[in-house]
């Protein structure tokens, strides 16, 4: 229970092998992605949506976790906050990853076809929101806002390393308190724009919350994987203990349940009301082989993580927690695949084209992590909450 007042922390450099691995993954993934784009442009574009949303989940979810820590005054996560700060740098990269999709807007979004909108009263009614100009404005504005918040919050955090000034914590609390409602609105826009509007006739008022639950899981899982890998290889020294891992696991477990709750709420209302304008989206996912993915989603995204994280030991043991975190990240990919892909084709498909994009996104996350890691101290050494965070006991 004795911790030195001054943290003795020497940052180790990441092995260069990791950088090569990241480049190999990006190279292979990008080659497959470009090949897929030439073979079947629309299909590649739909894959790009999945990848884009996956990266956005991790990036924006990480930023939300950081702001949550500041607003809630949490101390347990302070020693690990830098991992989320590093992962949040994916936000600008995500913006870039979205650009190829603008080449295929017509293939992705039915509402971009002027003649289709003209002939369809519903699409006409939605056109003040669903038009390419406003869509682009929303896209740019969303990412600009996120990047600004990311920039200021992490800059304050890094400045604090040298000065240890409480002022920066206060500033970040204020920024975070503003960011959280902004996040709620923008993430809803993101989910509606890029997933819900793929089927422009469909609507679900809970959809933003549904995607939000996924972003939290993805961000937590990505951070957990990184933290445990760093911990196992001695990058954290002996600073982290089971209590920290338990808290990460418990938060993840909570969001597994939250996702199930939201997903079921959405399904139950659509199923109960049985209105054709809502049910067609579900029946699309109950035909042509998609029904197996729908059923698998319940198991992959809820049953397995629920059982796997239920025991106390599962959350305290870093090895087991790491496996569950990898699984949850995979589950989020399956979730996005299930949300996006049935729109492209009515029967289930998975081929080499679908492999390239996940590979590419893993490579991107890895590379972003490596590059950002070099410029940031892994421990927020100047944070006034750090000592309490390191002394954290359940």
């Amino acid at each position, binding site marked *: 229970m004795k911790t030195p007042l001054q943290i003795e922390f020497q940052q180790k450099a990441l092995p260069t092998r990791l950088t090569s691995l990241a480049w190999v993954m990006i190279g292979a993934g990008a080659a497959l992605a470009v090949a897929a784009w030439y073979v079947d442009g629309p299909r590649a574009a739909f894959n790009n949506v999945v990848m884009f949303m996956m990266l956005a989940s991790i990036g924006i979810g990480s930023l939300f976790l950081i702001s949550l820590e500041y607003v809630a005054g949490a101390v347990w996560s302070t020693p690990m906050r830098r991992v989320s700060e590093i992962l949040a740098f994916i936000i600008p990269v995500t913006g870039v990853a979205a650009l190829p999709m603008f080449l295929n807007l017509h293939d992705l979004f039915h509402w971009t076809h002027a003649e289709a909108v003209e002939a369809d009263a519903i699409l006409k009614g939605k056109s003040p929101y669903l038009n390419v100009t406003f869509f682009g404005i929303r896209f740019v504005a969303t990412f600009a806002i996120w990047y600004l918040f990311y920039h200021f919050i992490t800059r304050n955090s890094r400045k604090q390393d040298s000065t240890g000034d409480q002022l920066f914590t206060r500033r970040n609390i204020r920024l975070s308190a503003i960011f959280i409602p902004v996040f709620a609105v923008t993430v809803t826009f993101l989910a509606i724009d890029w997933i819900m509007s793929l089927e422009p006739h469909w609507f679900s008022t809970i959809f933003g919350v549904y995607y939000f639950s996924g972003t939290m899981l993805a961000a937590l899982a990505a951070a957990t994987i990184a933290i445990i890998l760093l911990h196992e290889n001695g990058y954290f020294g002996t600073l982290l203990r089971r209590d920290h891992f338990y808290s990460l696991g418990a938060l993840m477990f909570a969001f597994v349940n939250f996702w199930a709750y939201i997903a079921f709420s959405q399904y139950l209302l659509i199923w109960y009301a049985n209105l054709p304008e809502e049910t067609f989206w579900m029946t699309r996912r109950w035909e042509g082989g998609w029904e197996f993915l729908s059923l698998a989603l319940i198991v992959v995204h809820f049953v397995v993580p629920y059982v796997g994280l239920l025991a106390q030991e599962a959350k305290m043991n870093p090895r087991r927690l790491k496996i569950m975190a990898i699984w949850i990240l995979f589950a989020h990919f399956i979730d996005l695949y299930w949300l996006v892909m049935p729109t492209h084709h009515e029967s289930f498909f998975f081929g080499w084209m679908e492999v390239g994009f996940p590979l590419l996104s893993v490579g991107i996350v890895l590379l972003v992590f490596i590059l950002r890691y070099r410029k940031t101290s892994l421990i927020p050494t100047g944070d006034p909450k750090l000592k309490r965070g390191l002394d954290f*006991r359940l």
Partner: protein
Amino acid sequence: MQDARLYSLSAIFQTPDEIAHAAEQTVERGYTAFDVHSPYPLHGMPRAMGLKASKLGYVTLVFGLSGAALALFFMWWVNVIEYPLVIGGKPLFQLPAFIPVTFEVTVLMAAIFTVVGMLFVIFRFPNTSHQLHDTPYMKAVSSDKYGLTIQALDPLFDEERVREFLQDLGAVEIHRIQFDAEEIEARPRIFEPRFVTLLILVALLVGPSTYIILNHVLYMPPFDWMMEQQKINPQMKSELFADGFGMRSPVEGTVARGHLPYPFKGQPDLAGKFLVNPILPTESVLELGKKKYDTFCSPCHGNFGDGDSRLRGQFPNPPTLHSDKSRGWSDGMIFHVVTEGQNIMPSYASQIKERDRWAVVHYVRALLRAKHATEADLR
């Protein structure tokens, strides 16, 4: 056990670090019947004491799963077996709609039985006394000291050695805790007449008083919003129409859905010639026909169409259906008679729906055939 009246040796320590160290040492010495007391939760103490995870979790698990099973079973029984009612065109067993209830019952059962299990199994309620109660030791460790108590029933317990051990650990005081005379005699008190009587009294008090409060003191009339609607009932006056009639006749030249007029009114010959049974005699159709026949036809025609009326002369008995004349009738003719009536038999068009009447025709055919089975039918 050296002394039946000795409960434990309890030592008092000054600092949390000392007590954590003492707990570790006690585990190392191999004592198992020991406990630690502190005025507030001590981080890391469960680990220092080598505590295993509580068994209470299994109670929660078992009762949670029982709750889920019970809720699902009950809803299945009500909705599928006891009172099958199609709601919103959904199947009788509508799993998605059952999930919220199942979830609630699971949580409720798990929570209630965790508390009950904790009270009755672990705390041995209604036994409320404990050897350490009202001792100077307990007073000290519930304000500003930390205590370690090693029970005499520990197999390794030896009073002198334990005393020495505790002193070596740095205990400032060591108390000898003894059983009270009545505690030695203590038995589980859950079936004690006094406790059982108390439970019965509580039940007798709570049940009727709840009934009286809800039904008489705080009585709320049942909602009658659906009964008291603003609408025109048959025979009522209407302010809307100039002629003041609430009941309107259909628009000229229209036919309401499901009310196609019967085209063979008073023309049994044409009906027998042109009407064809539109439904197939499947098992469910015969079941339906039997149900309708037994309800509407059998009082006069008898259960098997023999014309043996149950009405004991209150209404003239009809002739048997098994006569050569009626056996020669076509399906359309039978349908016509059911629809229009014949002689003193009234029309059943308003009691039995059209499709059901055709099912009755099938069933009557089956009855006729049963009494006049041919060689081929028996094979």
